[in-house]
């Protein structure tokens, strides 16, 4: 069975600030890590491989340094890693990211099952997975919290919906996005680190794709444009109240009403 996991390198901290003059993000490019939600996706893939055999690959789109997360995936037991990296991918929004990944996936493999994390901690949209599935023309199921059965031509999963739990069977090829309580991710192993030290990371650029039109990628292939970024409004409502208990509790009551909590 061929399983492909989409992983992303994200900033190690969410403590970012906006330069008030230029409106540009102030953050260090150095401090980065694997998107924590993608660890669950990798773990799910490895468990399926343990049961059914086959290969687990990871794919990521990002700068050359993103190969670090592929190395980390190797240390968890992943067989192959693919990095899609090109200057012309810069500035991709969800659509361009998904398109680039789908082009990369078509180029390198023919997976039965694609697994994505629930969301990223930087993009935080949870949209990339479903959009990849659309571009590949395969069905997808989001919010998977249990794998119930892995059959020859389909997988049975349990989905977490707000008020219900649904069990569905999906034929391969398909894509799922997994919740974080699906499995506890294993830690990277030192033994695997030594074993995979020389394992290559396959690199692809726009030139390797079926669609080589620059207009489809990066900023150009992104329908959404960020017009401006700004710090969230500081709460001017910050107030301190003193007084006798009766006054104070009446004021709280009025406030709760005003905020429509009661």
């Amino acid at each position, binding site marked *: 069975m061929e399983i492909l996991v989409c992983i992303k390198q994200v900033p190690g901290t969410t403590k970012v600030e906006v330069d008030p003059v230029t409106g540009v993000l102030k953050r260090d490019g150095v401090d980065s890590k694997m998107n924590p939600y993608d660890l669950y996706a990798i773990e799910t893939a490895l468990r399926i491989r343990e049961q059914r055999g086959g290969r687990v690959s990871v794919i990521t789109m990002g700068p050359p340094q993103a190969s670090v997360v592929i190395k980390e995936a190797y240390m968890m037991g992943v067989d192959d890693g693919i990095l899609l990296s090109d200057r012309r991918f810069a500035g991709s929004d969800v659509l361009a990211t998904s398109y680039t990944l789908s082009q990369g996936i078509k180029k390198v493999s023919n997976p039965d099952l694609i697994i994505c994390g629930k969301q990223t901690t930087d993009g935080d949209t949870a949209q990339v997975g479903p959009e990849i599935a659309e571009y590949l023309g395969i069905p997808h199921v989001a919010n998977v919290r249990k794998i119930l059965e892995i059959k020859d031509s389909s997988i049975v999963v349990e989905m977490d919906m707000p008020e219900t739990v649904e069990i569905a069977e999906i034929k391969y090829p398909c894509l799922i996005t997994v919740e974080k309580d699906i499995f506890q991710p294993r830690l990277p192993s030192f033994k695997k680190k030594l074993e995979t030290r020389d394992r290559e990371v396959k690199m692809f650029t726009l030139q390797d794709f079926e669609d080589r039109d620059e207009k489809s990628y990066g900023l150009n292939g992104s329908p959404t444009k960020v017009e401006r970024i700004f710090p969230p409004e500081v709460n001017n409502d910050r107030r301190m109240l003193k007084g006798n208990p009766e006054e104070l509790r009446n004021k709280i009551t009025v406030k709760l009403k005003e905020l429509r*909590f009661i």
Partner: protein
Amino acid sequence: MAKLIVNQEKITDIDALIKICPFGAMENKNGILEINASCRMCKLCVRRGPEGAVVYVEDEVVKVDKSKWKGIAVYVDHVEGDIHPVTFELIGKARELADKVNHPVYCLFMGHDIGHRAEELLHYGVDEVFVYDNEMLKDFRIEPYTAVFEDFVNRVKPSVILVGATTIGRSLAPRVAARFKTGLTADCTVLDIKENTDLVQIRPAFGGNIMAQIVTPNNRPQMATVRYKVMTAPERKAEASGRIIHCSIEENRLKSNINVLSVTKKQKEHGISEAEIIVAAGRGIKSEKDMAMIYELADVLGAEVACTRPLIEAGWLDSKRQIGLSGRTVRPKLIITCGISGAVQFTAGMNNSEYIIAINKDEKAPIFKVAHYGIVGDIYEIIPGLIENIKRVKEA
């Protein structure tokens, strides 16, 4: 086509220019400046570098004819015909946007055996409800739902589509956006519309530390998802207005490779992580039996009870209810802290809450630095009366 062009001859100090890039995307290759794949197109080098050294050029692109796309459409989120309340909130927003640009408001309602539910939508200011009622749409399955959505978009050509950021909405909207190769902005908190019908979408980015204003200037439809309880639902009008349009679609477009085997109702979980309102207790509570007033306050507010670490150590509450660095992070719409000093280990787990009311008798307590509404007073004198007040308001 937009790209960065480097004019090497205008660069005086190549290494100084390289330092401007926060992403390490510039390299000195034997005296020639090169931009690599780490570039995020933030354009800081354009603005901060020497004049003309790096320039941003944008070619003319074929412009979409925005006048061909008219209307603000809302996807009706529902489970077996029970309409999710986020739908009404979105209709309210859609009406407001539509009135600014003189567009109609549409609803897209798909499922099985839902026809009779559509009428309800007409009480909230919708012009037209498009109903697709088909047995194959009984359970939410991605391929047929996307096919119906596609049919609707091609038929109506709405300028804007709003979808609730529910489990279904978050799965369906991206699929539709990719099919139309258009933009989709997730979890918008503010929406507005420009005269040229461009939707102004504001959403928190990077864990809420930054707000981003996003537009989709050259694609239609423009799509956005909005979470439940972010917008305000309009009052239900006694009179229905607008009309219902029944639509059909060829069954062969509703095929799916997904087979829903079972749907089971969940037991409602009570946890603090997902809670919208939290009443949090700290060491200001003198003894375990006094927790009763905290539980009662939580009860009248429909809130979950949480606490600081010392109360966990005292064994008064289950450790799942601890907020903070070594406990859980919460982000409710409202948190009321009662007798909590506000140590950083505690506030780290709750300072992103939307509204913080703190009650503490020490006006110097650090909790007042993070609170929106700081009440300097004794919890024992305030909370019992507050509970009575709330009960009275609710009865009124």
